[in-house]
């Protein structure tokens, strides 16, 4: 990677992370701190009785049901649950594999992953997880445009489109790279980008320029996406599994009401 690209990439990362961290602090950390403070049972005073409900920490079953299986969504609609599962797990696993890629190839290079077959497996995993995510997003787009009565406006589509383009540009960048580097050692491990590359390589376009543009776009979109997470609906990626695991482990609303009623007894 050239010095320019390198600098540009790191600038993007730093700026994006800056926004991301500020957002996480403002919208997640300080909120949860406030909740913990509100729920603090406090001094028992003269009555010798807690004035707040102590919610137990989420059990394994609850975490599994709420965060992994996401049962709540399935109760709403099986199709929605399926789409969302593809997106959720696609995204998480794509992110993990991408970090592994960066970790074992750039930061702490391990031969198996730099030039060994490990790299091929990583490549394959990247494409697989990316594809899962892409299919989920596409299904979501189709549903939202064609079926969802209330959710057809641009306002509702923009976040979905953002993420969709992140993944699409990712695949396209890799496909373009295969066009300009057709002898890449691990090209057989690619089952999405490589076939696309092969299908389009014949066209007489400025592949190098296109590749640079696509790479830049992908980088900007990713940076923008991550910066956006805590300030948009994407924040649910962090707070929803957490909040739901804690509150759905018992009838929280009823417990709190009974606590208040006890005080009036």
């Amino acid at each position, binding site marked *: 990677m050239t010095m320019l690209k390198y600098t540009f990439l790191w600038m993007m990362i730093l700026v994006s992370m800056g926004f991301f961290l500020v957002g996480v602090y403002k919208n997640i950390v300080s909120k949860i701190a406030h909740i913990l403070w509100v729920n603090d049972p406090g001094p028992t005073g003269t009555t010798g009785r807690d004035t707040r409900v102590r919610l137990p920490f989420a059990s394994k079953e609850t975490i599994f049901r709420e965060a992994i299986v996401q049962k709540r969504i399935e*109760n*709403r609609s099986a199709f929605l649950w399926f789409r969302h599962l593809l997106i959720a797990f696609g995204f998480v696993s794509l992110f993990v594999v991408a970090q592994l890629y960066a970790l074992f190839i750039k930061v702490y290079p391990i031969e198996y992953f730099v030039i060994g077959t490990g790299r091929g497996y990583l490549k394959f995993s990247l494409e697989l997880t990316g594809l899962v995510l892409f299919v989920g997003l596409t299904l979501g787009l189709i549903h939202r445009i064609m079926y969802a009565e209330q959710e057809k406006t641009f306002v509702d589509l923009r976040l979905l489109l953002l993420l969709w383009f992140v993944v699409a540009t990712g695949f396209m960048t890799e496909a373009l790279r295969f066009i300009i580097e057709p002898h890449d050692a691990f090209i057989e491990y690619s089952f999405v980008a490589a076939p696309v590359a092969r299908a389009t390589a014949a066209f007489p376009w400025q592949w190098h320029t296109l590749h640079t543009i696509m790479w830049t776009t992908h980088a900007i979109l990713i940076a923008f996406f991550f910066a956006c997470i805590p300030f948009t609906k994407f924040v649910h990626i962090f*707070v929803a599994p*957490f909040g739901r695991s804690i509150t*759905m482990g018992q009838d929280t609303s009823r417990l709190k009401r*009974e606590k208040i009623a006890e005080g009036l007894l």
Partner: protein
Amino acid sequence: MSQYGFYFDKEKCVGCRACEVACQVWNGSNQTVKWRNVTTLTRGQFPEITGVNVSMACMHCGDAPCKKACPRQAISKSEETGAVTVDQSKCVGCMLCLWACPFGAPKMSTKGRMEKCNFCQERPMGIKRACEEICPTQAIVSGLIDELANFSKKNVADRLSYTEGGGVVLGHEGT
């Protein structure tokens, strides 16, 4: 900003749940899970038993914990009425508001968003809320918080005036 709220008289509540149903009927399909709930607790052993019935929806708190807890700022407090409402188009259903609320007011709807009492927002101020107008014993009263505070004091003074050997002073309230 004026602050409206609910006054609840536990001595009048008979735990009949009419308020729960009035809220359901008034809000129709906007409501998928009960916003107002009556809790009945008893304590003691036969025949020395005490109990209480408490009807609770949302307290429309001044410094609402749910509003401060929401990562999407989907919960807002009305300038004119002080009513706290959830904007379902912003809500992501993370349930942090329920975790924060000491009264358990926000609840998960079947649509994946949170819902709760919105103080009968379609009704202009000055007329009764649905739960209030239906309560057979008029245990629920809504109004401006300052006025409700005075109403409450007057109630207590009223009741004490009927007690023989009264002369109980309203202590620290000093009014």
